[in-house]
């Protein structure tokens, strides 16, 4: 039934009653009665019109709806009668539901949501997707070469289709044809089979096909994303006639991807897809199309129907062995072959995307989800307590209503409606809160200037989730008080609404709610303590370099035509270093491949007399002469690179302390040589210096084995220009960029950031967990305090009479306060007694997320317990004071 129908039929009934009533009246008048009397007689003959209307409604089957609307109206009125309680309840609910919704929307975006492609559950990835970059290691299982992908595509028996994705996003400064300025574009190189395999067809034009990917270098075509089409081309309908210039090659735009398709990597949204066959022409010009050992691709496959993951894994591993055996050459050792035999390629389902974010955030998000779940439970307990107190205070009202004939079921339903109204309002506030919170969270997760391309908007699944939470909350806290409120002895409650007789059963439930709240709060508070202290420990880690007063810039010469192996690239870098070093306020400037948390180039080194098995994982950093000065990394021995180290002179290297200790334990490494790669590689390096160990990829890593190479002896793109400065960062940054543009005004600078931002960005995950868990911990404590306060206030008001008598009999004020405080101590104490073991168990679950602190850290737990006690007592202090101020005369007269 629609409400407008109700209105219509109601009006109809009204009209019918009126017309018949008038008729009756007329007849009465015709019988000779006076108009007034006639009217009264007519009404008498008719009976109660309201009753008629109600009974007619019943006949229409609308009774329930009418009752419901009445209950809602009544509920709203009665909630508004106690605004403070309603506000607290709404706040608790909104925060509880809002936090849950916000975290869940993140969880969904990062962990749960399927890729918007055909049958995503059939998609698998070779390896786990935890690397990205280029490897030349023997038989890596995370990254694959293009020839490997082709061999696998041809020979496997388990995939209906296979595709590959270049593991690095190409951040290019390209030009839209007809414009004179370059703009940043995120380009993803994929195999021609990528779109067909995913079953994604173009919104406009066509997608890439295998034909675009068969021969190297002659298919300059690009598919653009819907977002980029909107952002950069203003949804130009003639998009297919437009071109893009990436590097020196002009690409035809052949299609626009559908709006929902953001690629296959959650948290990365390519603007442009190009075929792998064109990769060497897209800056920075990786040559990853032909080399068997250029392992730089993710390989994904679509399982044939009916093929299990185990079958697929067996077949792929067999193939893996065969392909790699065919890559054997004279450098491959017996050990390599033995390693290959032991190598196992795991297959990972990528139904919800290839996901670097998942590694980083899945555990934090799960933890946060658990935290917010607990917060919601605490909020519910709080509300249950509030309503419990309220409904007990309303015992008289219910008794009167029951005495007047209201049925228990009717009262229960009315109370439940009231709870539903509350929960619905809380849910709405919660959703609004969640929208804000999500934006805030997204901002918190995104390091650097760009917001992470993650769709965390509210959607149906999320709405359903919130609705479930809301309704179950309503039922949870609605049922208890409702059942309790109506289960009363009528006569007792009517006789004295205020005595303790009618409330005898109330306290245990309320008490246990408080105890649970305190226990949960302790868990959250201690967890927050652990995370916050981990974060502090991380912040205090000695990085080995000075993170203050350093700017990092990313110039992009590849986008303006500089090639990887041209000598003029080095000339450009040298010129940049010199011009920037001359800027006022700059004390040192040097290019470097990496500073901190920027990935790595790692590989094997061959050291005479050292077992190659332990020298397999050395990280290399290519730097300029002033790098150590710019980073303030102390040189422990030898010298740094100098102008006389050139492409023509002996190749030299500086090694880290750890490198020296590991490979030259007993001798002075200065002057010794080693090879990067195998013993026959052309890279024979002479050690000229030893630098202090530094943190390289993360603050919590073990010491890295590292060597530094001079860019003057290599020709390659180098990402960073490291600038140490004094004075104002903004002024220096502007001056430095101007200095770079004085060399070439067209040289794009992709990013400018500080080393300090880079370091703090590396612990964004820990920071978010620490901040949010602290927030939720405090929220939990706050909610518990409200719970304690309400219960105690209620208890005091209930026992005013008793307190009055005690005081009249000579009890001092202090002992009255003690009455209240004792109860609080008892409640908090019990909560703590339960909470401590739970905390110890829970904290062990997150021990791998802690840094520099043990999960069972006594100080944290003790601190949390003390904190809880203090705030608990504070919460009880007001009611206790009110109790001690009870005027015995007033209290006694009251009854």
């Amino acid at each position, binding site marked *: 039934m629609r409400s407008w129908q109700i209105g219509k039929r109601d009006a*109809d009934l009204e009209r019918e009653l009126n*017309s*018949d009533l008038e008729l009756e009246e007329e007849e009465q008048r015709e019988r000779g009665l006076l108009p007034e009397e006639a009217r009264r007689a007519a009404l008498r003959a008719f009976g109660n019109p309201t*009753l*008629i209307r109600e009974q007619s409604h*019943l006949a229409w089957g609308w009774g329930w709806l009418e009752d419901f609307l009445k209950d809602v109206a009544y509920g709203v009125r009665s909630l508004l009668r106690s605004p403070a309680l309603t506000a607290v309840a709404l706040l608790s609910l909104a925060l509880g539901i809002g936090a849950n919704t916000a975290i869940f929307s993140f969880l969904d975006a990062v962990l749960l949501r399927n890729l918007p492609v055909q049958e995503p559950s059939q998609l698998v990835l070779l390896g786990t997707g935890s690397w990205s970059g280029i490897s030349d290691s023997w038989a890596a299982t995370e990254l694959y070469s293009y020839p490997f992908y082709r061999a696998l595509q041809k020979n496997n028996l388990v995939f209906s289709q296979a595709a590959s994705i270049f593991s690095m996003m190409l951040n290019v400064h390209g030009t839209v044809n007809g414009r004179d300025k370059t703009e940043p574009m995120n380009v993803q190189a994929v195999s021609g089979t990528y779109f067909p395999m995913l079953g994604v067809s173009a919104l406009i034009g066509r997608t890439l096909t295998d034909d675009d990917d068969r021969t190297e270098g002659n298919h300059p075509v690009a598919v653009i994303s819907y977002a980029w089409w909107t952002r950069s081309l203003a949804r130009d309908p003639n998009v297919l006639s437009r071109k893009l210039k990436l590097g020196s090659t002009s690409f035809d735009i052949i299609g626009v991807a559908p709006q929902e398709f953001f690629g296959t990597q959650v948290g990365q949204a390519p603007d442009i897809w190009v075929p792998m066959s064109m990769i060497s022409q897209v800056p920075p010009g990786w040559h990853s199309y032909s080399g068997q050992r250029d392992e730089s691709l993710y390989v994904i496959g679509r399982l044939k129907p009916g093929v299990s993951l185990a079958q697929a894994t067996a077949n792929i591993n067999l193939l893996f062995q065969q392909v790699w055996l065919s890559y054997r050459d004279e450098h491959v050792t017996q050990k390599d072959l033995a390693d290959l035999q032991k190598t196992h390629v795991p297959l990972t389902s990528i139904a919800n995307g290839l996901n670097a974010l998942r590694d980083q955030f899945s555990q934090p998000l799960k933890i946060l989800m658990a935290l917010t779940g607990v917060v919601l439970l605490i909020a519910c307990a709080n509300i249950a307590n509030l309503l419990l107190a309220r409904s007990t205070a309303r015992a008289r009202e219910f008794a009167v209503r029951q005495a007047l004939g209201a049925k228990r079921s009717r009262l229960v339903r009315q109370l439940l409606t009231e709870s539903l109204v509350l929960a619905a309002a809380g849910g709405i506030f919660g959703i609004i809160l969640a929208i804000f919170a999500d934006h805030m969270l997204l901002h918190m997760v995104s390091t650097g200037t760009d917001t992470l391309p993650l769709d965390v908007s509210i959607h149906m699944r999320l709405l359903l989730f919130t609705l479930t939470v809301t309704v179950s909350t309503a039922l949870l806290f609605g049922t208890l008080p409702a059942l309790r409120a109506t289960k009363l002895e009528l006569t007792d409650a009517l006789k004295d609404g205020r005595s303790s007789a009618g409330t005898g059963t109330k306290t245990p439930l309320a008490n246990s709610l408080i105890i649970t709240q305190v226990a949960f709060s302790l868990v959250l508070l201690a967890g927050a303590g652990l995370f916050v202290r981990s974060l502090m420990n991380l912040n205090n880690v000695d990085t080995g370099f000075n993170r203050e007063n350093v700017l990092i810039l990313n110039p992009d010469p590849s986008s303006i035509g500089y090639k990887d192996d041209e000598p003029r690239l080095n000339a450009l870098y040298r010129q940049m270093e010199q011009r920037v070093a001359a800027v006022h306020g700059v004390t040192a400037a040097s290019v470097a491949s990496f500073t901190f948390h920027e990935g790595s180039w790692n590989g094997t080194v061959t050291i005479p007399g050292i077992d190659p098995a332990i020298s397999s994982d050395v990280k290399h950093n290519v730097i300029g002469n002033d790098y150590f000065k710019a980073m303030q990394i102390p040189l422990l021995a030898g010298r740094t690179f100098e102008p006389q180290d050139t492409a023509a002179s002996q190749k030299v290297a500086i090694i880290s302390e750890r490198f020296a200790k590991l490979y030259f334990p007993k001798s002075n490494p200065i002057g010794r040589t080693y090879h990067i790669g195998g013993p026959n590689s052309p890279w024979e390096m002479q050690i000229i210096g030893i630098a202090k160990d530094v943190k390289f990829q993360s603050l919590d890593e073990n010491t890295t084995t590292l060597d530094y190479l001079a860019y003057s002896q290599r020709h390659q793109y180098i990402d960073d220009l490291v600038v140490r400065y004094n004075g104002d960062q903004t002024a220096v940054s502007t001056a430095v960029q101007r200095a770079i543009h004085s060399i070439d005004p067209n040289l794009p600078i992709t990013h400018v950031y500080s080393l300090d931002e880079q370091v703090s960005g590396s612990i964004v995950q820990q920071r978010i967990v620490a901040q949010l868990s602290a927030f939720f911990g405090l929220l939990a404590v706050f909610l518990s305090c409200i719970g304690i306060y309400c219960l105690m206030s209620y208890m005091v008001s209930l026992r005013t009479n008793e307190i009055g008598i005690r005081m009249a009999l000579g009890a001092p004020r202090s002992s009255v306060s003690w009455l209240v405080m004792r109860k609080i101590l008892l409640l908090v104490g019990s909560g703590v007694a339960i909470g401590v073991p739970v905390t110890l168990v829970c904290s062990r679950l997150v021990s791998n997320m802690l840094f520099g602190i043990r999960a069972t850290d006594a100080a944290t737990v003790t601190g949390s317990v003390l904190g809880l006690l203090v705030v608990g007592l504070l919460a009880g202090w007001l009611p206790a004071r009110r109790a001690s101020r009870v005027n015995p005369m007033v209290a006694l007269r009251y009854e």
Partner: protein
Amino acid sequence: MSSMTKQAQQRVGVLQGTLDMLILLTLLYGPAHGHQIGKHIQRTTNEFLQMQHGSLYPALHRLEERGWVSAKWETAPDRNREFKYYRLTDKGKKQLLVEESQWKQMAEAVARVMWPAGEES
């Protein structure tokens, strides 16, 4: 919901079957509006059923809901005003037969209890 209907049934209770039947019977003579129906029932029962007109309307609406009568606003021939006229539907006619026979059975049953056969003969 269920408790609600139960409540309603109890309230209309004893009278319901009878009232429904009386209304249907009244309408057998032709369409009539609420006031006429009420008056007719009162007259034909010789004012025996002291009912308020008002209780008629919920019953009328219930019958309409069940499809036993249909209703339409029409101008009364004697007064120049519109009234809501009720008509017996085919379904209503069948229902009247059912109720009649049920009532008969019940009346006979009650009669047998009240005045056992022996007394009569």
